[in-house]
């Protein structure tokens, strides 16, 4: 059974109502549970849980320290292209936005990659839009092969591929896949994606499964906070993560918490998520998935990121630029979204150390991949 069949058994409105109806006793039980079940997750995401945010944070903190120690893995995105044929209403790279388009050549990619390598990064995330005519599987594989000697782990956040495509990516040295459903609400999804290949909700939903089948070792999911009601969105994200961890048990599942930021085309988030709500989501996910990677990007402010640090986060980006060529060029193309925390990687590492955390730059090795250059 794919996750599609599982989610189709739920009526989102009914899930929303059940979450709203959770009371103090439900939250207390969920907080004390040895293993958080789907009903407990509902309680942890409910309005009633707002009064338990500190105990949730305490538990989340304890679990995270026990499983991960005082470490934060640092990574950086490289935007390879902002070409896109999709019409996602909330995205700065939306095909209808009149912004300068750019796709990096292999040499340009290497130039950005070298800057990040110099800064200390060994975990890298390659990002593109969806523009099959200009940016295809061969391009991405060639990019990965070019920069592979510089990094120990390469992940992708690009268009959804078939199992064949992901197998090609693994062969090119890519070990991780990030793919956000954006919203698990089918109706809202269709409204927000008026045209383009991304309009296919089902195909996108089972993308992580195709990646897992192809043998990608890290699979990251998430919903774009601000689009739909965060409680039901986070509930389905949790179910999705649980499903993936059971069915693709050799892969590490991670969850990201992207919150909508101002972008070109200025789409106001229909359901903005507040800071306390963001904390509630992070802690609920940690209680549900003690071993999952929880990722915080530079979309959030420096002050907030510092405060979120002990709550369950295990991985952070640093010094990010969301424009293609942005690391090595002065006059870069338009950004996908504005970042907030603009501290340099060195400043981030310093902050982490000052707070008693070990900044981890390398936590993988290409030797793990069968296609590694080793004999």
């Amino acid at each position: 059974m794919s996750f599609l069949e599982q989610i189709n058994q739920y009526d989102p409105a009914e899930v929303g109502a059940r979450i709203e109806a959770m009371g103090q006793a439900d939250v207390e039980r969920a907080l004390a549970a040895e293993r958080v079940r789907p009903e407990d997750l509902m309680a942890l995401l409910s309005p009633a849980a707002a009064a338990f945010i500190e105990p949730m944070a305490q538990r989340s903190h304890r679990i995270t320290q026990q499983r991960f120690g005082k470490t934060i893995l640092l990574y950086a995105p490289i935007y390879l292209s902002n070409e896109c044929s999709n019409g996602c209403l909330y995205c700065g790279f939306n095909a209808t936005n009149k912004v300068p388009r750019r796709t990096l050549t292999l040499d340009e990619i290497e130039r950005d990659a070298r800057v990040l390598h110099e800064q200390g990064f060994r975990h890298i995330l390659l990002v593109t839009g969806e523009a099959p005519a200009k940016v295809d599987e061969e391009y991405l594989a060639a990019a990965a092969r070019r920069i592979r000697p510089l990094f120990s782990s390469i992940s992708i956040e690009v268009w959804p591929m078939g199992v064949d495509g992901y197998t090609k990516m693994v062969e090119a040295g890519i070990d991780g896949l990030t793919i956000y459903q954006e919203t698990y609400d089918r109706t809202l999804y269709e409204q927000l994606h008026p045209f383009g290949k991304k309009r296919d909700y089902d195909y996108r939903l089972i993308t992580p499964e195709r990646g897992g089948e192809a043998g990608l070792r890290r699979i990251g999911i998430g919903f774009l906070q601000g689009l739909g009601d965060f409680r039901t969105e986070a509930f389905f994200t949790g179910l999705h993560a649980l499903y993936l961890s059971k069915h693709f048990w050799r892969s590490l599942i991670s969850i990201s918490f992207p919150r909508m930021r101002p972008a070109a085309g200025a789409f106001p988030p229909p359901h903005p998520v507040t800071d306390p709500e963001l904390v509630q989501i992070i802690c609920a996910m940690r209680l549900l998935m003690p071993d999952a990677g929880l990722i915080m990007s530079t979309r959030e402010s420096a002050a907030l990121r510092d405060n979120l640090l002990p709550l369950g986060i295990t991985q952070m980006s640093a010094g990010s630029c969301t424009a293609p060529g942005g690391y090595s060029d002065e006059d870069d193309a338009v950004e996908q979204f504005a970042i907030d925390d603009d501290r340099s990687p060195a400043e981030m590492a310093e902050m982490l150390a000052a707070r008693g955390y070990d900044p981890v730059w390398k936590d993988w090795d290409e030797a793990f991949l069968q296609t590694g250059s080793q004999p």
Partner: protein
Amino acid sequence: MNDQLIIAGRSFNSRLMVGTGKFASNAKMVEAMELSGSQIVTVALRRVNVDNPEDSLLACIDPAKYLLLPNTSGARDAEEAVRLARLARAAGCEPWIKLEVTPDPYYLLPDPIETLKAAEILVKEGFIVLPYIGADPVLAKRLQEVGTATVMPLGAPIGSNKGIRTRDSIAIIIEQAIVPVVVDAGLGAPSHAAEAMEMGADAVLVNTALAVSPNPGAMGAAFRKGVEAGREAYLAGLGEKRDKAEASSPLTGFLGA
């Protein structure tokens, strides 16, 4: 309440499976089966003549009431287990098989390597395979990957009546499994069965505790209640020990600022 155990698409009302070994008489065995409410009964292929409808043990098991689950008990390696399973099917048994590969004749602990090997072969041949295993979560995942219908981790060595000594590992198996988890072996008292069900096991299998009781029928009824109580408690949601209350807000104080 519609809370059925589903294995390989087949539904059962009872979550208690029983074995047929060690009973003082067939009459005692039948009484225990009846009062346990069980619908799945396992029989060691080495003990019966599967191709003889007059076999005294098989004749006691009403196929309308029970799914006869032949087991490969006594097999020392994959080859022997596969041969036994094929013989059972050739004799007209349904293609269900409880896979037991236990080369060690003392504790009867299952051989993980031979069990996985045999499971792979039997699944390919169309058997519905229920493997008896040590409580090893990775082995459980490898078995469900090759297509077994359940996993059956042991609570303690067969016949030991010691209860769930592998609790932490079984908890991990239950958390991660995508097939039903049946706790098999070592359950000596109804409270042990209840404990397994409270943990979220899908079913349990009991034999020795019934067979060696002075009153197997009454013990069957007691296990039935234990299983039902544990299952109902699991579904209702158990309260847990509370963490110490935290008065201050050192981690989330920033939100109120």
